[in-house]
């Protein structure tokens, strides 16, 4: 069927695009393809692009596999698996000159491109009386053969991933497999295979690792998958996972859990976060621990619900009336998502403050390799100075009458939960005295305000012992290359690190954004003459934030169309910015 083997570029870097209509199973295909390449020992990354539409509308995933760790997608692809004609038309420009596109034989005539190869997908489906959604499976079978992958490993993955009608799926896949010739050979790499998980899964597991008792949410892209995931594992982990009537209820119910001593986290996106801000301020005043996962998407308002953005940094930093300390962290990949979710929950509880995990659609819904070895122990860092009477639970069994807001050196009061025999635990949204009783006294107000803000100072100190700013200095590609640095945060870590490596630039990624790690950031800037901030927003929010601490970016690369930076796009823009 297929003509002779085209030459495909170095297998240290393969990109496969699978595309079709929303609802046609493109997402699932992406996962299967990703796992297939991952299990061969390649480092794998999957970028997912889908509209806010259940059926129809164009959806695609780009699966990238390479010898080295990668955390970004490329525009250029080696192989397109076109489940409909639109896919080829849309993405033709991405396909390498020597690339190939697999499509249904029916479509081939409409695609007069020598790189397109027809496979009798619909014919096979008709013969097997298989439903249309199995076109995917057939296509994946063809892909495996074309790239020289054995059928048994594919069969194993299909059995794991496709619970409905596995036999028919495998049959259809095999027919696809048999319908094409091998055009290139992807050699298995004999080395450790790493887990391939989404950022959302990493956050979910990190929260569990941090001791989560309850996850509460109202569905909202891009954090809905955390809700689904934790609902699925709630029994094993003994979690309460609740989908409530709206986001106001979500955060207030979570604060009820916290009061009763159970670690709760909530997940949402912009609009839902708006509704949580009043609860956030309550958490600040009442000193109740709470962890909020804020998944950013393209705004304002409903915006582009299934696309990404980094435009809520300053909102997250200032959300809620009045002034109170908060911890704000923006992980850049799966390992960071896991680590900081676990540590974030600890910070929230040890300092009795809200912690925010600032995620985005690209972080949450892309698939990343997860390398355990890169993850520090989230229980390791000591946070509060030893000897202070402020550990959770320290209130129980004291001599004194328990005072929920006892003044201490660090500002952190002993934390106890009902029932506390002989003690009364009062939390209060009004300004209050140490016992939690309402006050309007000016002195008391000032003292309590200071107490709460003191916690931020101690948190900043504690974080000195943790790596809060990542830097990367690749091989120097020129005399002064390292004098230029890319500044990035969140999911732009991947593209920036790869482009930095290619161009020999320094890359600086503050992971913790509040309290701002001024000292570590200062150190990272050593030797840097030109700092270019790379952000998915229109106003360079991180660029603006660092000015508060006396730093200044002198270049901006901004993108507001909801899509992730591809390597090529970013590289081009960086070169322009440097010129």
């Amino acid at each position, binding site marked *: 069927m297929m003509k002779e083997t085209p030459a495909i570029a170095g297998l240290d870097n393969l990109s496969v695009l699978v595309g079709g209509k929303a609802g046609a199973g493109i997402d699932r295909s992406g996962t299967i393809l990703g796992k297939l390449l991952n299990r061969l020992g390649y480092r794998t990354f999957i970028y997912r692009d889908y509209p806010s539409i259940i059926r129809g509308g164009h959806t695609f995933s780009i699966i990238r596999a390479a010898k080295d760790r990668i955390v970004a997608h490329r525009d250029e692809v080696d192989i397109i698996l076109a489940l409909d004609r639109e896919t080829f038309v849309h993405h033709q420009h991405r396909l390498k000159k020597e690339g190939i596109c697999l499509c249904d034989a029916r479509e081939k005539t409409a695609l007069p491109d020598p790189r397109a190869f027809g496979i009798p997908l619909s014919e096979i489906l008709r013969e097997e009386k298989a439903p249309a959604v199995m076109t995917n499976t057939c296509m994946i079978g063809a892909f495996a053969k074309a790239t020289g992958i054995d059928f048994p490993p594919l069969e194993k993955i299909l059995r794991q991933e496709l619970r409905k009608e596995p036999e028919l799926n495998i049959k259809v896949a095999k027919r696809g497999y048999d319908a094409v010739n091998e055009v290139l050979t992807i050699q298995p790499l004999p080395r450790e295979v790493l887990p391939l998980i989404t950022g959302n899964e990493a956050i979910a597991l990190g929260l569990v690792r941090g001791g989560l008792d309850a996850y509460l949410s109202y569905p909202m892209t891009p954090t809905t998958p955390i809700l689904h995931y934790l609902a699925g594992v709630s029994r094993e982990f003994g979690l309460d996972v609740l989908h409530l009537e709206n986001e106001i209820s979500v955060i207030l119910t979570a604060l009820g859990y916290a009061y009763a001593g159970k670690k709760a986290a909530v997940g949402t996106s912009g609009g839902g976060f708006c509704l949580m801000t009043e609860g956030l301020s309550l958490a600040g005043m009442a000193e109740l621990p709470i962890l909020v996962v804020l998944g950013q998407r393209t705004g304002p308002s409903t915006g582009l619900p299934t696309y990404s953005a980094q435009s809520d940094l300053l909102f997250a930093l200032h959300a809620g009336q009045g002034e109170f300390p908060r911890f704000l962290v923006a992980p850049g990949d799966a390992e960071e998502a896991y680590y900081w979710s676990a540590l974030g929950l600890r910070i929230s509880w040890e300092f009795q403050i809200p912690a925010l995990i600032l995620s985005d659609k690209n972080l949450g819904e892309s698939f990343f390799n997860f390398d355990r070895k890169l993850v520090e122990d989230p229980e390791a860092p000591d946070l509060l100075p030893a000897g202070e009477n402020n550990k959770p639970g320290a209130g129980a069994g004291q001599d004194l009458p328990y005072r929920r807001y006892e003044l201490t050196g660090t500002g952190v009061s002993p934390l106890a939960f*009902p029932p506390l025999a002989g003690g009364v635990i009062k939390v209060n949204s009004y300004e209050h005295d140490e016992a939690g009783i309402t006050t309007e006294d000016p002195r008391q107000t000032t003292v309590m305000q200071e107490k709460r803000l003191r916690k931020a100072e101690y948190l900043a100190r504690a974080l000195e012992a943790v790596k809060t700013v990542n830097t990367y200095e690749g091989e120097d590609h020129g005399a002064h290359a390292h004098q230029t640095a890319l500044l990035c945060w969140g999911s732009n870590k991947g593209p920036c690190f790869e482009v930095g490596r290619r161009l020999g630039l320094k890359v600086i990624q503050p992971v913790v954004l509040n309290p701002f790690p001024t000292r570590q950031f200062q150190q990272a800037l050593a030797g840097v003459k030109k700092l270019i901030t790379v952000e998915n927003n229109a106003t360079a929010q991180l660029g603006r934030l660092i000015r508060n601490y006396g730093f200044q970016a002198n270049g901006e690369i901004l993108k507001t169309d909801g899509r992730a930076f591809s390597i090529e796009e970013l590289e081009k823009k960086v070169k322009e910015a440097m010129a």
Partner: protein
Amino acid sequence: MTAYNFETSTPNTWCPGCGNFPLLNAVKAVLQEPGEGETPTPPENLVLVAGIGCHGKIVDYLNINSFYSIHGRVLPVATGIKLANPDLEVIGFAGDGDAYGEGLEHLIYAAKRNIDITVIIHNNRVYSLTTGQFSPTSPLGFPGRSTPAGSPEPPLNPLELLLASGATFLARGFSSQPEQMKQIIREAINHRGFALVDILQVCVTFFNLHQYYAERVYTVEDHDPADYFQALNKIREWDYGASPSGTSPGGASPGKANPGGEEKERIPLGILYKKEAPTFARRLSPAGGGNREEATRESRTAAKERQALIEKILAGSK
């Protein structure tokens, strides 16, 4: 054993004569003296939750665990506490503006879910702490400070609304009838499931209905609270002043609203509805068809097991 001291030393700032005083006393009495044959809940197992309004101050006056929440959000907070620790006895205190206005959706959902908590509404039918605006239960035409020409909307009948929402215990008390309040509150606390007590709490400063109520209230008798239709009829007997031409206090012109000679409407007090149904927590449990293992919940802190499970999941994600 010395008796537990339920008092705090916080000065009370309610207006003299406010209906919140007898309500506070009734609550205190119920918590202090268990009903016949009952073992009292240990004081440390009680948790009070309050909204923002005059009513909310009640938690400052009781030496009991409390969560002084924000305006309109008593219900989710109380729900969270109860779900987190079913051993706690959770009692919410909310205002009519608070629970029937600002955060009405939560009230309906607490009823729908049959969360095992008790909510006491200080229904003074006005926003008091913000100095006298009309509320969700003010009579039509009430001339509050935001509606000087008279409120343009009829009140909700909160009990009717909650009956339709699936509440399993509905009662009405009157702040000038302390004994009955005690009895109702005691039964509400003992009820397994969501219990709402609407207390006609007189606000002497902004809407003094003491006399008006005194002339109209009666205690239901020969009433079967388990019978939905009987309950509905009792609940609908008084409409909180929805009909301007009726006999409800129109505030603006009470004379007109309650024309002399016409018969006065009657306001039933007591337990109006009561039904047994599985609570939310029970439905979450295996016994109720869910997968929430109490046993596992106890051992939640077994970090090691968790860690192992996480590793297993990761190993399976390749």
